[in-house]
């Protein structure tokens, strides 16, 4: 007890930090993983009826109040973990994150790879209405419609006619309703009959099928979503294995099995409760008190939990598709943003020196309790395009010092201390402090380089990072869907929407463009590999760690199908396969 008490107290400081950072949850790794089983196979041994508990109630956490349960508008992991139980789209994942049939039983891809035709199964919503092709068309149009202002509208960019609509979102003056409607009418989606959905693309995009597994593409009934309080309990129309039974805002949300669920695996759970609290430490206490059946272990508790004779065996560590990295400000080009003068990080030798002076395993051991895998490039393991051997600048202090000498000569300085303090930005209250300190100290020891560590509130930090006001900044990325396009395009292309490193290399951009238009999967991966190799050779960023999430799961919870797309609970893509054993 004393040990546990101490462990929990040790994390108190983190809670306070986390309280401040509670707003920071970014789009979760939308899964693109291959996790959902085609409705028939589960990874866990099927429990026989005799060892099932009488009470099939599972208590989990959503780690916060879901900002919305409107599938087209959702973007936070708190919402998505619940939406995975409430909705299903045309296609879904199997447990290996391969794309498998969902509401579409089959699909045809035209020879030019630009027309996808889906054939729907007979299925009903929770309200008894049939799920028809028109509901998919309505949902996609609503997602793109600038009037919806959906955060994930950009995933539709490959649909024929979508770029015009996406451009209208920020147009000044705002386009009239008639203009928008005309563009929507021309959009390349149609329902020739109730059982067929046709999607025309403006470019061959093999990754689009994977993108269709996203929660934003699920069928939506117009009469439902336009009704008042549509997303509240009692009104919610579900296309997934569960229905929304109750939602006490900020406290608890309960799902029950959907009597009209069309999938082959029917939920065994009779009640799925989500706690809506955003405090991992309190969740951990609730797990230890038996009130939660699974929980994400807070970082400060990981070592204590692993060493605990009871909790230790309940730990599951699951890699997920996200990366911890730090950006160098690559700014070279006066056309970019507001950053006027290139800093030392614009010098490639300087970036190489900083990269080579970091022992990434030591970083992970010291600041992530040793949980996670060393990252040397950006596309994550498990995603086609991952390059395990790409590591142009491994940890090597001697080489780092050589590069620093070259960089200083080019910058006209005699020592790194003469550069003054580099601006090193991060957001406070989210546990980044020790990591920033680790890196700053490593650079100080290696080169005598001083940094000014600027911790800001999340919004302030984002604003300044976007504007290029830091030399170095904390960063991270979670895959929306498991495809190299989602990891490179827009993040490192010139002027890309998420290009925090101000990186701009026309060779890289050309390869990304070429890859997007390449229908052959293998050739496409080769092109993405070439592009990523350029990026890493330029030392544009400092990749550090591929994420692994530590969960604890009570021993009586069976049938969990965990995937790299899990971000709040293990197996959240397949709530319907989970069972409670006798205990």
């Amino acid at each position, binding site marked *: 007890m004393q040990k546990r008490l101490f462990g929990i107290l040790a994390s108190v400081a983190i809670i306070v930090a986390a309280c401040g950072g509670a707003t920071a949850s970014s789009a979760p790794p939308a899964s693109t993983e291959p996790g959902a089983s085609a409705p028939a196979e589960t990874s866990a041994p099927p429990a026989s009826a005799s060892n099932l508990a009488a009470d099939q109630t599972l208590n989990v956490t959503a780690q916060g109040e879901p900002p919305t349960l409107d599938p087209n508008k959702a973007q936070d992991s708190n919402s998505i973990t619940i939406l995975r139980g409430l909705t299903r789209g045309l296609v879904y994942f199997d447990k290996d994150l391969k794309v498998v049939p969902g509401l579409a039983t089959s699909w045809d891809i035209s020879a030019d790879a630009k027309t996808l035709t889906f054939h729907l199964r007979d299925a009903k919503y929770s309200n008894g209405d049939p799920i028809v092709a028109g509901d998919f068309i309505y949902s996609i149009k609503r997602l793109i419609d600038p009037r919806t*202002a959906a955060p994930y509208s950009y995933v539709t960019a490959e649909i024929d006619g979508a770029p015009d609509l996406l451009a209208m979102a920020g147009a000044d003056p705002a386009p009239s309703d008639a203009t928008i409607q005309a563009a929507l009418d021309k959009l390349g989606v149609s329902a020739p009959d109730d059982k067929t959905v046709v999607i025309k693309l403006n470019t061959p995009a093999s990754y689009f099928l994977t993108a269709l597994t996203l929660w934003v593409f699920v069928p939506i009934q117009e009469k439902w979503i336009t009704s008042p309080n549509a997303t509240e309990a009692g009104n919610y129309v579900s296309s997934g294995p569960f229905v929304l039974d109750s939602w006490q805002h900020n406290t608890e949300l309960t799902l029950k099995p959907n009597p009209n669920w069309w999938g082959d695996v029917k939920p065994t759970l009779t009640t799925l409760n989500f706690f809506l609290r955003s405090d991992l430490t*309190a969740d951990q*206490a609730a797990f230890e008190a038996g009130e939660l059946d699974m929980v994400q272990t807070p970082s400060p508790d990981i070592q204590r939990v692993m060493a605990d004779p009871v909790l230790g065996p309940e730990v599951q560590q699951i890699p997920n598709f996200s990366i911890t990295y730090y950006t160098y400000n690559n700014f070279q080009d006066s056309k970019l943003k507001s950053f006027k003068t290139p800093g030392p990080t614009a010098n490639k030798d300087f970036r190489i020196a900083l990269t080579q002076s970091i022992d990434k395993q030591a970083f992970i051991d010291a600041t992530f309790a040793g949980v996670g895998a060393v990252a040397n490039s950006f596309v994550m393991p498990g995603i086609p395009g991952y390059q395990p051997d790409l590591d142009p600048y491994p940890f090597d202090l001697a080489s780092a010092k050589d590069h620093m000498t070259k960089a200083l000569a080019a910058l006209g300085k005699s020592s790194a201390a003469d550069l003054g303090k580099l601006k090193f930005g991060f957001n406070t209250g989210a546990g980044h402090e020790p990591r920033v300190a680790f890196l700053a100290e490593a650079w100080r020891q290696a080169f005598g380089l001083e940094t000014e560590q600027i911790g800001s509130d999340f919004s302030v930090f984002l604003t300044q990072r976007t504007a290029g006001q830091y030399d170095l900044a904390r960063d991270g990325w979670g895959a929306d869907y498991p495809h190299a396009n989602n990891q490179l395009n827009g993040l490192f292309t010139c002027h890309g929407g998420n290009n925090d490193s101000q990186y701009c290399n026309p060779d890289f951009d050309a390869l990304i463009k070429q890859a997007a238009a390449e229908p052959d999967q293998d050739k496409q991966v080769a092109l993405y590999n070439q592009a990523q190799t350029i990026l890493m050779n330029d030392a544009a960023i400092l990749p550090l760690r591929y994420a692994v999430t530590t969960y604890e799961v009570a021993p009586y919870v069976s049938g969990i199908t965990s995937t790299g797309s899990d971000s709040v609970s293990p197996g959240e893509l397949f709530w319907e396969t989970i069972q409670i054993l006798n205990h």
Partner: protein
Amino acid sequence: MITYVVRRILWIIPVLFTVSIITFMLMHSVPGGPWDRDKRLPEGVQARLNAQYGLDQPLYAQYINWAGGFVQGNLGPSYRYQDRTVNNIVADGIATTFQLGVMAFILAVLVGIPLGILAALGHNRWPDYLSTSISIVGISTPSFVLAILLIVLFGVELRWFPTSGWKSPPYWVLPTIALAGFPIAQIARYTRASMLEVTRKDYIRTAQSKGLRDRAVVVRHMVRNALIPVVTILGPILAFLVTGSFIIETIFAIPGVGRYYITAIGTRDYSLLMAMTMLYAFAVAFMNVVVDVLYAYIDPRIRYS
């Protein structure tokens, strides 16, 4: 008296107006906006959202819009919880927050005042040391430490109470104690100091020399007079408690409104932040009026006309 009360209550209006202007300006002078995400929203989408919520208008126009809605009881949309209005969010949680605050207040008064009296009566003897130690621990222990300690001890180890939630009376116990910890200490210290002050007054000596029983001296003369300054701080304490606590509500997963006061700042949820500030400002201003009125009853020398 009635005129006085009415005038004081009317004075709350300009106070709220001033608070709203200052908050509004401070809030908008901080960089960032409600659509900031680690994964950036496309600029077009941000522009569209700004237009939809009127955030593209000049500040004065935004303020007038907000104030116009506020006067009519419309607190505006929530930017973070887009399917819900601020009215909705406040209406959902205010009763819970109020209930928790009042329970903590009652506990703080019932424990704090006797603790302070006890300390003063046993001045420089063990009751004083005991009470002072409790107060010092209470003052210096942050509520989140107390909350986690209570959860670990009574929720995880002893399993007497649930660790979180707000379903039935057993769920109320730990949050109420955690929230009352600080005010108990505050009230006890105030009461003790005030009692010690009163003990030295002439009228106490007079009462004692008249041969009044100790009990009568303490209850009728000392406590009654010592409580006047204590009442002054009870007002703000109650205002503070009934508008909720971010830490306590978050840690115990209580469906109140207190947590929004902090989260709304981080998410730049402007209308929610305005609503919470107004709520708190009103509670403080109103409790000050109540305290002033109470003086008249406790202290016969005070009369309003």
